[in-house]
């Protein structure tokens, strides 16, 4: 059995496509078996809603009178990168106000940053725009202090260089002090364990070999529509193994792009990690076309087959000491406790499963209604077989 994108899209247009969320596919496979499920189902929808630091938006403000080549730009006091053309800037999710106390009063609060600016923009709140310049013959203006809203400016393009991490560490703390990390507050001596994917609903865990997700893939992004632009930064997909067992994929990432103006503040949420910094939580959903049985088999992987490595963020992670404390399945993580070094450790997610489920069902609805067709990638992303590996800095 092989299906094509064109056939699936024809069925979507005819209102006949069978679309299931990844959770529903798992139930169907349990009930009818893989082959039958693969034949019946056209599309499987996935979802994730979690902090994704490598996010931001390109903005074009429109020109002032007289004209200005904005050299420094601040949005609600948060600096945006203006080293591009005259009235273009990039607001990054983790940028902080210049007068933020940071970690000087440890652990810092990081209540407002670039991610919050992006959420306020999509919420259609007025944003204070300040800019400075040195003045040129063609761009004489040197100062600007005004208010903008998302609807006033020309373009606002969300472009996130690294999102939707395929899999992520389960973070613990082996030291004797409380630590504050991008994986949340970790209590001393294995006091808690934090993990951050939606497991069996998570997009890239369901297409480990990148057989369907590629450049141009149309996705749910921030409540609206977006596309996969490229592979994400640090895209090093691999298949984890331990004791001769396949422990599921890890390491893939996506660069995604979409028009911020059609997104929603429910799905782009400014986020603050005490002692660490500010970021943006992003909602992403990827549809997986069930082109054949193999793709269905991967899409039907359950929390029992997908594993996260347990990493000590007290010592090993900051010092970049390789290795981990073992692997735990998402089923164990979601149960609320795991066993580590003979100790029962309470677990908690940083990635919202209820929101991930909402994304998968919203995407399913859009496809069923015929308002969301699938795109065949222009080019697939590098897969584990391509053997991309990380480089590290010297010094």
């Amino acid at each position: 059995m092989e299906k094509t994108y064109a056939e699936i899209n024809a069925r979507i247009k005819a209102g006949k496509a069978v679309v299931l969320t990844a959770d529903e596919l798992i139930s169907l496979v349990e009930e009818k078996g893989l082959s039958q499920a693969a034949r019946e189902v056209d599309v499987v929808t996935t979802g994730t809603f979690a902090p994704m630091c490598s996010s931001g938006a390109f903005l074009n403000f429109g020109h002032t009178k007289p004209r200005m080549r904005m050299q420094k730009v601040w949005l609600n006091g948060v600096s945006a990168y203006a080293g591009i053309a005259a009235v273009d800037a990039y607001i990054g999710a983790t940028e902080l106000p210049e007068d933020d106390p940071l970690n000087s009063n440890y652990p810092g609060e990081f209540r407002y940053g670039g991610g919050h600016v992006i959420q306020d923009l999509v919420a259609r709140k007025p944003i204070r725009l300040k800019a400075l310049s040195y003045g040129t013959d063609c761009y004489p203006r040197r100062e600007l202090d005004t208010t903008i809203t998302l609807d006033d400016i020309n373009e606002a393009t969300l472009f996130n260089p690294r999102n939707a991490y395929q899999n992520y560490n389960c973070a613990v703390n082996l030291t004797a002090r409380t630590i504050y990390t991008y994986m949340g507050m970790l209590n001393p001596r294995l006091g808690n364990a934090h993990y951050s994917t939606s497991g069996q609903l998570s997009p890239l865990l369901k297409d480990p070999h990148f057989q369907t997700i590629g450049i141009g893939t149309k996705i749910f992004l921030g409540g609206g529509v977006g596309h996969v632009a490229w592979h994400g930064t640090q895209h090093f997909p691999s298949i984890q193994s331990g004791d001769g067992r396949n422990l599921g994929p890890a390491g893939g990432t996506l660069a995604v792009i979409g028009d911020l103006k059609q997104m929603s503040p429910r799905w782009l949420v400014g986020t603050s990690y005490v002692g660490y910094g500010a970021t943006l939580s992003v909602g992403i959903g990827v549809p997986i076309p069930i082109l054949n049985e193999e793709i269905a088999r991967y899409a039907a992987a359950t929390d029992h087959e997908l594993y996260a490595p347990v990493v000590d963020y007290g010592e090993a992670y900051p010092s970049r000491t390789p290795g981990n404390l073992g692997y735990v399945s998402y089923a164990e993580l979601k149960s609320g406790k795991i066993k580590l070094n003979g100790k029962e450790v309470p677990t908690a997610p940083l990635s919202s499963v209820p929101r991930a489920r909402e994304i998968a069902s919203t995407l399913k609805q859009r496809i069923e209604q015929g308002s969301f067709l699938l795109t065949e990638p222009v080019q697939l992303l590098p897969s584990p077989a391509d053997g991309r590996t990380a480089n590290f800095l010297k010094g």
Partner: protein
Amino acid sequence: MSPKRIVLRFGADISDKPVIYRLVKDFNLVVNIVKANVNPRKEGTMVLEITGEQWGEGLDYLRSQGVAVQDLNQEIIRNEDKCVMCGACTAICPTGALFLERPSMEVHFDGDHCIVCQLCLKVCPMRAMEVSL
């Protein structure tokens, strides 16, 4: 005199000391234990109502023993519009007032179990937990 409501938080080293007994005996206080909880890490929390002349001295004594004492005139509420049900607070909340329901993985808040330690105010990445005075 109306009773004073306070929250006590103490580490594993205090759990087996008779601090409440001393409070009653040495400071002549009437103590009503409203809630008490010891978590798996043996850290305890207790909500007390105390009445008596020497309550100030009694609280000083508790502090000298390494017990954190806090007034309980505040209430913690969850801003439902801001909470995204991520779960990041659930392994931090010492009493299980913030907890995940399984298998839905929805996060619930049970104010009856809250001891106003305010840890969630600090760790909630969405700043969804608020103090209402």
